[in-house]
């Protein structure tokens, strides 16, 4: 995905609906996030553009709610329940995902492989 600071972002997104799992007093999602505007984006192994300060999925627990819902490691989270995730701090992102009164989070995510697949399939289509 091309990320030009100041330009609107155009990406192919996938909708992921995660049902949180109740574990005692906690609601777990089964994945980890990294990134944020207050973090060092150079360290992000998943981003194409190292100035991209977005929120990325850094780990997905095997068999957890996130994996079941289709989330993959390296996904960039664009929105959570309608809230933008492209310009937030790490902590703000965490808060939007871990609201205690929400059992479900609906994410809009994008991933490199998605883009490639769509681009390829578009190229293969014969133009009528």
């Amino acid at each position, binding site marked *: 995905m091309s990320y030009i600071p100041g330009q609107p972002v155009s990406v192919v997104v996938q909708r992921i609906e995660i049902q949180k799992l109740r574990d005692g007093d906690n609601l*777990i*999602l*089964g*994945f*980890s*996030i*990294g990134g*944020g*505007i*207050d*973090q*060092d984006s150079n*360290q*992000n192994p998943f981003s194409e553009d190292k100035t991209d300060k977005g929120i990325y999925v*850094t*780990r997905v627990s095997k068999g957890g709610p996130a994996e079941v819902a289709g989330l993959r490691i390296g996904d960039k989270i664009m929105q959570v329940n309608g809230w933008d995730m492209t310009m937030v701090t*790490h902590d703000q992102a*965490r808060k939007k*995902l*871990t609201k205690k009164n929400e059992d479900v989070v609906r994410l809009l995510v994008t991933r490199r492989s998605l883009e490639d697949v769509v681009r390829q399939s578009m190229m293969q289509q014969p133009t009528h």
Partner: protein
Amino acid sequence: MHKNVNSSCDSGIQRQCKKAKKYDGSELSTQGQKVDVKDQAVEKKTYPLGPDRSTELTPTMHGCDPEGRSTHDSHPSHQHLMGSSVDEDDKSDFDLYRAEEEIEKELRQKYQSKPEPAGESQSSVSAPEDIQTYSEREWKGNTSKSRLIRKGYDTIANKYTLRIVRGDNYCALRATLFQVLSLSKQLPAWLGESDITEWPKRVNSDGDLIKEWRFPLESRKSKVEMLEQCLNRLRKRWHEAVECKSLQERERMCQQVFVGQEEEYELLEALKFLMLRTAIQLHAVMTKGSDVPEFCWLLFARDSSKCPKSLLTNHLRHVGFNGGLEQVEMCLLGHSLQQTIQVYRLYKSDTEEFITYYPNDHQEDWPSLCLLTEDDRHYNALVPKRSTNFDECGWPIWRQPSDGQSHVTTRL
């Protein structure tokens, strides 16, 4: 509190006897020491506001220890009483009649063990603590007292953070001194107007009062010279405090002072001297018939302090050793420094005495220093909370984004 005695049968009873005899023992001492004994006797009778003026002559009695506080349902003073008598018994197993000098010597030894830190320097004032956490930790019970105290803490939790002051008989002076050095924004008038190091000589010239003075640490200097040194230190440090350019600088200075060494005690003695001098002045005005602040009447109405000399002998010279400051003496302290000491008294939560001003007649023109006490015995310091998003002038504070931080990952 007799149950403590009975639990160890004979030895308990012996302890009681020993206690009584100890007191008699000191009264049998030689002629030259009788004056001191009388002072002690007077002290015991005439401290109406203080329930447990130390009968065991241990300076630590006045303080509070965190362990004692968690089980606060029983009266803490009695617990301390029994505790300290055990110590003294261990030291003097067979000597039923201890002379006055031995008691004084022990007192000095116990006292001097405090100023010498064991290896590393111990701060006399702790780092700021969140009040909510502190109150929940220290007052866990559900008695009406616990609830009252916690309520008091809750009322001020979002306005201040707490700094615990070392719990000995100097704590009221120490807490006040700490607030002065860490928060005061300008020098009081009297500090700038005259050379305060001349005051001890002047005070002493009228009646040789200073010979009664008692210092916690020994020195070769004369008492007058020692007081001059103390006042000089106070002046220097107060100047330094006010001239600090940042909070960090100020905090560093306070950490240098409040380490339980000579400097700290000299500053505390300087405060005591200022109280004496002010008392002399106020007493003179009072006897002439002119107007004085209300607390003066209360101060000199006590049988034990009808005049400045007896105030010194029976009260001031014991402060730090075996007594703290009474409320009326807190007024004297505030008045001497020209600061309003604003004390949150938690056991008076829900009453109009919850916040008491010492003194209360200069709230408009003298700066405020905030202290906290749960029981009018131990005082801690309160640091006003600053709004974390705006600086002193009201401009938003820019916080740098944490660049250069290693990749932070949060598990959800």
